[in-house]
């Protein structure tokens, strides 16, 4: 017993001396370290990492940030909030990173938000979409001014979904009745509320609203209930559930389109994961690879595809833009001090690959989220057509019309 504890103390002492030898990096030293955090084994995490790498390589090739190179540091949060807080602290205190980007799980983003404030390091969320992040910044401004987000929050997504569904289902296909199927998760609260108001206002009656547990494995009862409601299309709101609803929708040949928002369907590997069952599924997403939202969109998408052999996901766009925003902000602030970067970031007015990025101010409800709508970030709707994501909305940049899978009957006009 005594020896055990003695050993344990020994280990602690050894550990602490080891720590001591890791002196924190000096602020002025080259290069600038930027952290990327996510669960990299997940496809979303890989998308984040790839976007960050591409941006960093481009920036470094073009001379860096004010002559200083970017050094990317990666932190795997293992999908756990407690791991993430440790990793964040390691990044800042140990490795001296000047800013952190990443995170696709809302619970982690919300946990890290106060930590960014405590550590006074800018943190750009590039994957998680819960409105709460922006609300937290709003409620705790200016303490939480370090937190930004370059991916659309749930409420903006809801707006995009409402607009795109209105144009596609109501306009192109002439549907009158839709069902709303969303996962039983916190982020869908505001999403549902918004759509329940917005869709009827746009002439689409919601004949069935269904909440789905995130661990649902069998969707048969759900589809059958929706079918019984005589809906003509299903407006989805799924982010966590994964490919099950899509695969079972195709297997059961549910005779109505799946549209709305489906996080997984926005990723390019989705065709392979579902063994092609995603044919005909459409989703709202940040940007697509085949239509020029901005002049930067297609060059980025093409280069990304060449480099990684897969199309960029919304997270890749967000992370890619986040790094350029950081570069821009640091150059304007002429400092790598967290507070200075954050203040500069707040004033960003930048055209990125996913749109014209301007952040909402302290007075706006979702502080430091991107402004959404015409002239800002708009998002697109894509549909899976024969193994490819094809942009079908907004109508002015669409590459094709919405097509119907074999088992979905054409609407009687």
């Amino acid at each position, binding site marked *: 017993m005594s020896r055990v504890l003695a050993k344990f103390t020994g280990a602690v002492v050894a550990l602490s001396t080891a720590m001591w030898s890791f002196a924190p990096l000096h602020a002025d030293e080259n290069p600038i370290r930027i952290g990327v955090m996510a*669960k990299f*084994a*997940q*496809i979303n995490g*890989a998308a984040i990492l790839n976007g960050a790498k591409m941006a960093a390589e481009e920036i470094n090739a073009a001379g860096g940030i004010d002559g200083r190179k970017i050094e990317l540091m990666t932190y795997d949060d293992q999908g756990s909030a407690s791991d993430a807080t440790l990793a964040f602290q390691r990044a800042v205190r140990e490795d001296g990173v000047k800013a952190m980007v990443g995170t696709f799980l809302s619970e982690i983003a919300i946990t890290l938000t106060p930590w960014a404030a405590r550590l006074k390091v800018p943190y750009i969320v590039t994957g998680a979409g819960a409105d709460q992040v922006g609300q937290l910044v709003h409620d705790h401004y200016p303490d939480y001014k370090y937190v930004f987000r370059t991916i659309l929050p749930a409420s903006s997504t809801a707006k995009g979904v409402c607009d795109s569904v209105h144009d596609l289902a109501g306009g192109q296909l002439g549907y009158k009745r839709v069902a709303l199927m969303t996962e*039983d998760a916190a982020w869908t609260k505001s999403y549902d509320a918004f759509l329940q108001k917005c869709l009827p206002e746009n002439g689409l009656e919601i004949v069935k609203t*269904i*909440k*789905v*547990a995130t*661990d*649902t*494995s*069998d*969707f*048969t*009862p*759900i589809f*059958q*209930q929706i079918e019984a409601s005589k809906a003509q299309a299903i407006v989805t709101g799924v982010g966590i559930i*994964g*490919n*099950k609803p899509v*695969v*079972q929708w195709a*297997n*059961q*040949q549910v005779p109505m389109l799946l549209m709305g928002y489906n996080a*997984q369907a926005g990723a390019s*590997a989705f065709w*392979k*994961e*579902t*063994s*092609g*069952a995603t044919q005909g599924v459409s989703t709202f997403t940040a940007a697509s690879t085949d239509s020029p939202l901005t002049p930067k969109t297609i060059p980025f998408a093409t280069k990304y595809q060449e480099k990684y052999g897969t199309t960029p996901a919304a997270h890749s766009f967000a992370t890619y833009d986040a790094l350029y925003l950081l570069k821009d902000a640091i150059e304007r602030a002429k400092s790598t001090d967290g507070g200075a970067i954050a203040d500069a970031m707040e004033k960003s007015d930048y055209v990125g690959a996913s749109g014209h990025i301007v952040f909402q101010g302290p007075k706006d409800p979702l502080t430091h989220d991107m402004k959404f709508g015409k002239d800002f970030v708009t998002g697109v709707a894509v549909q899976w057509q024969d193994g490819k994501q094809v942009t079908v909305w907004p109508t002015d940049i669409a590459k094709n019309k919405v097509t119907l899978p074999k*088992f979905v009957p054409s609407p009687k006009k």
Partner: protein
Amino acid sequence: MLAELIVSGVIISAIYALATTGFTLLYGVSGILNLAHGTTLATAGIVAWYVAGRSDLGLVAALAAGIAAGVAAGLLTFWLVIRPLQRNFELSESDEHVFMLVATLLWTIILQEGLASIFGDVSVSLPQMIPGVVDILGVRTPASSVFVAIIAWLVIGLLWFYVSKTKSGQILLAASINPRGLVLCGINLGRVHLLVWALYGALAGFAGVLVAMILGVSPSSGLDLTATAFSIVVLGGLGSVGGTLIAANLIGFIETATAYTLGPSLRSLPALIILVIVLYFRPQGLFGRR
């Protein structure tokens, strides 16, 4: 609604039944609750998916690869986890029980992370065996699901045939009833255990492929599958194959009925609560003997 409930209840129950048969067989013969069961299913499903996407042989190759992956996972579990633990004589019986559970859980993490790093942590689905839908009792049902349900019961039937009609099957059955008696009959229990793990792996592999086809699997879905299998097996009574089949149908139907009546987001809750209540009043499960 009744027709829908029956059709989808039957299909989901068939999959549950097949997915838990191996688990209960393994417990019956070797007394081990393999909490890595769900991940073994997932391993088979993911490997089959990988092969299906890369091979011209399509589903046949995928099924073969899935079963092979299941057997490999089963045997590795036996060799790397179970045997070392069984050879540790320092442990008391109740300690060994808990150690076995914890060790298989650790093995779950290892398998899961291994899968995630090789194939990525994504949810995957196999292409359908038969495309198209059929009409049953007025319910449009994927032909594949019907086929899978039939195959599931067919495999269970084959297993029954194997156990009751073949020599090695009889030895397995005898081992689950009285391993001491088997030793007296000159049979090497070590080989019986190897056989049961291999058979377990094959069953889990087959079930994993079917689950991946109908429901989809991901590396991290293993624990959920284990929880379902564990619940079914304990509800039916540990070691009772008949009890397991009945409990699989019970849970399958309760879940489906809940989804139809109370709403899909409550799907698993009543089944869990019923499980707890049953165990409270019948600690040995519905058909358990102890």
